[in-house]
């Protein structure tokens, strides 16, 4: 009896233990978490594969191991893994660098990449992406592909009703354009206002515009319940109340709105520039003749509205045992060779001036990227280092929902958004 018991228990334990064999980090192996899977076939993923293969070919004995992650939980998992002391050497992040830095999970790159940066500084575009990654003079991440939420619109629909992209310069023009499209029976504006996966909206853009281009004040302090806050929020809610935007917007995530745009059910949609390639490949109508990308409107014609710049970037785990190898690979990803892969194969905005003018980068998605790149250079505002801003857009969306559906006054709704944002810092 006792023997039988012990034997079965031992069998079970043995069976479960043998499952768990995972590759233990050894010297020469650099592990990396990213949302890209190099085994897949999309442009960025092929580019990542090419970059890795090239690097490994040049550095025999170094093995780059990619562990693809769900992007939505990747940062949190990395911090938890860091506190459990078994994180990967390299972590990708976009807007969550603040969490990585503040938790001490990633380390300064100055000891490893200061010289490299000095050498390459002239060729690198998007200086403010680097500023955004620099904390107290320490470079905490290497930006790889910048992007910004800009305004996508249907050139063909605009042409049908005699609109041009200049009509989108001001908010009044923007609203009038939407009205004109609707009156002509064409699809109008798609705006995602769900709390889930939020991004820039009319309200946040208008607020930043009125607030010197920033969402948060120095020290990451929010103060939205002001006259300009109310003005910005009301601009957006009025468009919904007047029927320029469907009420369904409050339930739409960024993805939902995008799906509709791909399906031909919108003429204007705010979207991250990084999705230009996906738009061309997954719809039967989109091409450089039918799609345009422009900056956000503003209240006056003298300038465009600000766009929130961001960049996927790579950081080095503070507990890494392979900091030299890992940082060397990080530099390679941002080298001219790497930058070319991202821009050409990966169809991302070019990272370096030397790559931006390559002849390969013309027509199709590259035309859209060109427009996005210009818009980003003109209007891009990167968040202050260390400020947690990504959920703030959600707070604004919630404020819009509260005003529209719960009958809360704009000031009160914005006060809640202010509190939520400040609590997170």
């Amino acid at each position: 009896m006792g023997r039988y018991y012990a034997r079965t228990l031992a069998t079970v334990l043995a069976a479960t233990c043998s499952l768990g064999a995972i590759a233990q980090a050894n010297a020469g192996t650099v592990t990396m978490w990213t949302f890209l899977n190099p085994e897949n076939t999309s442009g960025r993923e092929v580019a990542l594969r090419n970059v890795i293969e090239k690097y490994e070919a040049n550095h025999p004995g170094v093995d780059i191991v990619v562990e693809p992650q769900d992007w939505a939980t990747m940062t949190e998992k990395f911090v938890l893994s860091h506190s459990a002391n078994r994180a990967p050497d390299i972590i990708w992040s976009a807007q969550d660098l603040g969490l990585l830095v503040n938790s001490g999970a990633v380390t300064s790159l100055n000891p490893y990449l200061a010289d490299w940066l000095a050498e390459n500084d002239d060729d690198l575009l998007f200086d403010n992406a680097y500023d955004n990654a620099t904390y107290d003079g320490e470079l905490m991440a290497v930006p790889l592909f910048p992007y910004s939420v800009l305004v996508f619109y249907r050139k063909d629909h605009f042409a049908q009703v005699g609109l041009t992209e200049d009509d989108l310069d001001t908010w009044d023009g923007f609203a009038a354009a939407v009205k004109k499209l609707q009156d002509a029976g064409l699809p109008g504006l798609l705006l995602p206002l769900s709390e889930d996966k939020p991004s820039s909206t009319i309200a946040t853009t208008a607020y930043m515009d009125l607030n010197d281009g920033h969402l948060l004040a120095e020290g990451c302090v929010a103060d939205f319940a002001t006259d300009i806050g109310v003005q910005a929020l009301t601009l957006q809610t009025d468009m919904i109340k007047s029927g320029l935007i469907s009420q369904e917007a409050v339930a739409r995530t960024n993805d939902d709105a995008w799906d509709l745009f791909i399906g031909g059910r919108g003429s204007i949609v705010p979207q991250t520039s990084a999705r230009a390639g996906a738009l061309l490949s997954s719809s039967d109508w989109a091409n450089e003749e039918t799609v345009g990308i422009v900056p956000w409107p503003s209240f006056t014609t003298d300038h465009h509205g600000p766009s929130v710049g961001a960049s996927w970037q790579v950081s080095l785990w503070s507990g890494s045992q392979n900091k030299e190898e890992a940082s060397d690979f990080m530099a390679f990803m941002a080298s001219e060779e790497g930058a070319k892969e991202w821009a050409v194969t990966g169809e991302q905005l070019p990272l370096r001036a030397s790559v931006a003018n390559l002849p390969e980068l013309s027509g199709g998605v590259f035309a859209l990227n060109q427009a996005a790149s210009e818009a980003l250079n003109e209007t891009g505002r990167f968040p202050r280092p260390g400020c947690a801003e990504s959920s703030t857009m959600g707070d604004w969306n919630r404020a819009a929902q509260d005003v529209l559906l719960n009958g809360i006054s704009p000031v009160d709704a914005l006060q809640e958004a202010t509190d939520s944002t400040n609590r997170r810092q």
Partner: protein
Amino acid sequence: MAEAGVATVVGTGGRRSKLFRVGEVKPYLFVLPFIGLEALFLLLPLGMSLYYSLFDIKYLIVGDFVGLQNYFEIFSNRRFLASVGVTMTFSLFSLFFTFIVGFALALWLVKDNGHSVFMRAIILVPYVISMLVGSLLLKWVLSQDAGLTDLLLGPLGIPSLSILGDPSTAMAAIVYNGVWRDSAFAMMLLMAGLKSIPLHIYQAAKVDGASKLYTFWRITLPLMRMPILITLVRLLLYFVNSLTFQLVLTGGGPAGATTNIVLHMYRSAFEDSLLGLGNAMSFVLFLFNLAIIAVIIILFRVSGRTPK
């Protein structure tokens, strides 16, 4: 082995004995792996979460001890209190409809003929597929964008409807999701209960001239007390603790109309990285669960005592 024989415990209290094997004292060995696993992977994390709820945690790194401050903060937070209301609304409506639909299906399909077996299999499909996939597909169907609602409601003269864009219809949608998925579960549990009622009791009722309705109220329901209790408790626990429906179908919106406690907790912990607060909420949720079970059981006891 031999000396232990006399000490072996047999049936305490009741006259019915338990199977006994002379010379054996091993019941604890049988339950030890189970207790060990639960202690390690369930009770320990629960304790950790209780412990962490007393700290200020920022950036997922444990900070200062703050005592019950997290708890005070929860209960002074309007959105948390709103999420309690949402949880109750969602749970009670889902429970009500799931139970009714499940019971109706169980009564309808209780006979073991080919038709019933076939229909049961179909009804089980939403239950056995991944909740993530199920809710995604349902969202695809229910969103105004898919155009299906307009297609169906247009001919009826109902103007285009934004189901997920309106707080009350969004709540209805999420309740529908719950009913769609879990009716099968209720059906199975209740069907099992129906089948355990001996046939001869129904025959006797028939001979006694009882109508179908009378038989249902006076025989089926009273004999189903235990299965019904179990079904209610399990369903309610599912609904109170559901996350996937809200996360995938409505994202908790609009305007927080479908943000339940779990989603609020999940957001605080994982999106706002306020783990101390998240842990405090999870502990409150745990107590909430215990209270629900206690209330249901007490209600059943009380109703069981009242004379018919």
